[in-house]
């Protein structure tokens, strides 16, 4: 599923890459930028956390012109007189204006590095509203954001991820250069798909997916221990013995007619006919007559 997300098939998508201090997600973010550049799209990066050279490091080629880096690293809060991009400009009108003026006809992808920075200076409600409006607005085709999961309260992180169409959570993998990605994708019809993959990122920022773990590690099936083995007596049946066993009539197996008769017993089928025998003491008189009560 990671490769499908990188290919970015659906418009209006909002991908969140959740990382933590143990494993950074910036390399995966650069892979997404790389993939968008290969698709001939214009990429607008709001850089709050790293500066331009560090972000563009490794992304080579002529496609680099299509990356528009909005420098929010040097002066994000507008303390100097001429800030390049401040965090207060994170609202619908400013962002739409920014995107429209730079990319002329190509679909634009907005990359936010990182959303955690913005969430520290704006309330989550405002951030959610802006992101929602951006998605519906149509100025940007897709939004990819980096979110540091350990910086926020669970509710804030949950609310922002609730808006996203796909959430990729990164954890460190077994080897040094491998990482585990847990992906939750929500399609338009409301269907939710989950996946877990091990991947590593090559030098040119393409992603190789090593293997797919299932949504759950199923415990390996133990070989069924055959209880009839290793015994001093024989529990198995040979073919002739099995045939003889099936031929044996069970004690309470009745014929079909008798079964139907028993199942649907009609009225009056339980009559008892009694013929007094010579041995029976059948006396008409009441035997209790001579009792003196």
């Amino acid at each position, binding site marked *: 599923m990671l490769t499908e997300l990188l290919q970015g098939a659906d418009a209006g998508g909002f991908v969140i890459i959740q990382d933590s201090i143990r494993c950074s997600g910036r390399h995966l973010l650069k892979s997404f930028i790389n993939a968008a550049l290969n698709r001939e799209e214009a990429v607008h990066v709001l850089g709050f956390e790293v500066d331009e050279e560090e972000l563009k490091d490794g992304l080579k080629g002529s496609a680099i012109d299509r990356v528009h880096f909005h420098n929010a690293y040097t002066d994000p809060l507008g303390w100097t007189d001429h800030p390049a991009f401040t965090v207060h400009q994170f609202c619908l009108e400013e962002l739409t204006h920014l995107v429209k003026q730079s990319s002329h006809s190509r679909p634009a992808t907005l990359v936010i590095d990182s959303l955690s920075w913005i969430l520290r200076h704006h*309330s*989550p*409600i405002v951030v*959610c*509203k802006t992101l*929602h*409006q951006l998605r*519906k607005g149509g100025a940007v085709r897709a939004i990819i954001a980096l979110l540091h999961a350990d910086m926020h*309260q*669970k*509710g*804030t992180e*949950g*609310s*922002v991820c*609730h*808006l996203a169409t796909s959430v990729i959570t990164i954890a460190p993998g077994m080897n040094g250069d491998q990482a585990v990605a847990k992906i*939750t994708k*929500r399609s338009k*019809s*409301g*269907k*939710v*798909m*989950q996946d877990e993959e091990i991947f590593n990122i090559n030098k040119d920022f393409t992603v190789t997916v090593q293997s797919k773990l*299932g*949504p*759950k590690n*199923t*415990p*390996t*099936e*133990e070989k*069924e*221990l055959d*209880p009839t083995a290793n015994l001093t007596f024989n529990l198995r049946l040979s073919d002739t013995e099995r045939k003889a066993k099936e031929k044996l009539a*069970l004690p*309470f*197996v009745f014929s*079909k007619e008798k*079964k*139907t008769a*028993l*199942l*649907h017993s009609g009225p009056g089928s339980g009559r008892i006919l009694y013929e007094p025998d010579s041995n029976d003491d059948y006396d008409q008189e009441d035997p209790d007559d001579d009792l003196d009560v």
Partner: protein
Amino acid sequence: MAAPMSGVGKPSVTSFQKKTRSKLISIAGTRPSVQNGQLLVSTGVTSLDYLLGGGLAVGTVLLIEDRYDSYSRMIFKYFLAEGVVCRHELFVAAAQDNPDDILQELPAPILDDIAIHKPAEQPRLSSEPQESLDAMKIAWRYQNLPKVQSALASSCRFGHYYDVSKTMEPEIRQAAKFHRFYVPEHPTQSSSTHSTMPESYSALLKSLQEVIHREGFDLAAPMSNSRNILRIGLHSLGSALWGDDLCCHDNPKNGHSLTTFLYGLRALLRSSLSVAVVTVPSHLIQDRALMGSITRLCDNAIALESFKGSERETNPLYKDYHGLLYVRQIPHLNCLASKLPDHKDLAFKLKRKQFTIERLHLPPDLSETVSRVSRGELSGAAAVASACGSGTSGNKHLDF
């Protein structure tokens, strides 16, 4: 017993009135409850109607909690589709999706009345003994006994079935009257610290009140022959897009805005002929006490837990179902106690033509190596169960 009643501008009239004509309103798509005479509407899902005691009572709220909003959205659409088919009026409010888009996705009703609902739960008729006798070799005396009924259904059908793979035809959809409230269309001022509720909630309440009054759903309006029911659907209340920080912060500033809104909503519903279905992303609300008070304020409350993405998806016990359903609350309206469902372990599955809710049966555990998950472990720590199962499964068949 007659009590004298002093009416304004009337001579003293006793409260004893002769029964001149029946006071029961008969509205299409509703029926009185067999338990307490309340007017009921169908939720669109027959099994859910059975769980709620025959249907959703007019004037009450149904709360649906769901983590990923996939199945609760399905029930939401069933509810609205049922309203269209019964010719009720609809009011949809949403913050994330446009209400028009939600209405485009309604499932198509299956209009031929022949039950797709196969009579599998009826006892096998004894008019066909031949084939049935061959079925059981040893236990043939039990053949004519009825099978265990695991699907919840009552004998009389109330509500319609829908085909999820098709959407409702535009002609049927446009026949229904539809009111909408889309939060981005009602811009709020940023400085609203003086109100107890975010602006979107108060705007929604005002809009609801206005619709109820204008279209004549008020109970105070004179009873006429053509009354109708208003079905209200509120999608994803409490999420950040409504302007409420209930889900965002652990200690929300306006912690009681949603509860105040629900209180106002219930007051509106009780005095009008309307029903509401509300979905709330409860997994985002960190304060469990607040979630408890939200549940209390809604009359009916159910929670859906889908198996997608949890360890339970591959558990062989759950392979037939899509998730578990918990009934959190059933109201007792005008009576002392409500009829809770007998079975607490319920599971649901969404088939193309039906959303069924069934009692969860544990199948007989015949294999030695299947890890024996007890009832306590099913609901709670699944991780512990899997650890126990995989670790000691080698010795399992030797335990006594």
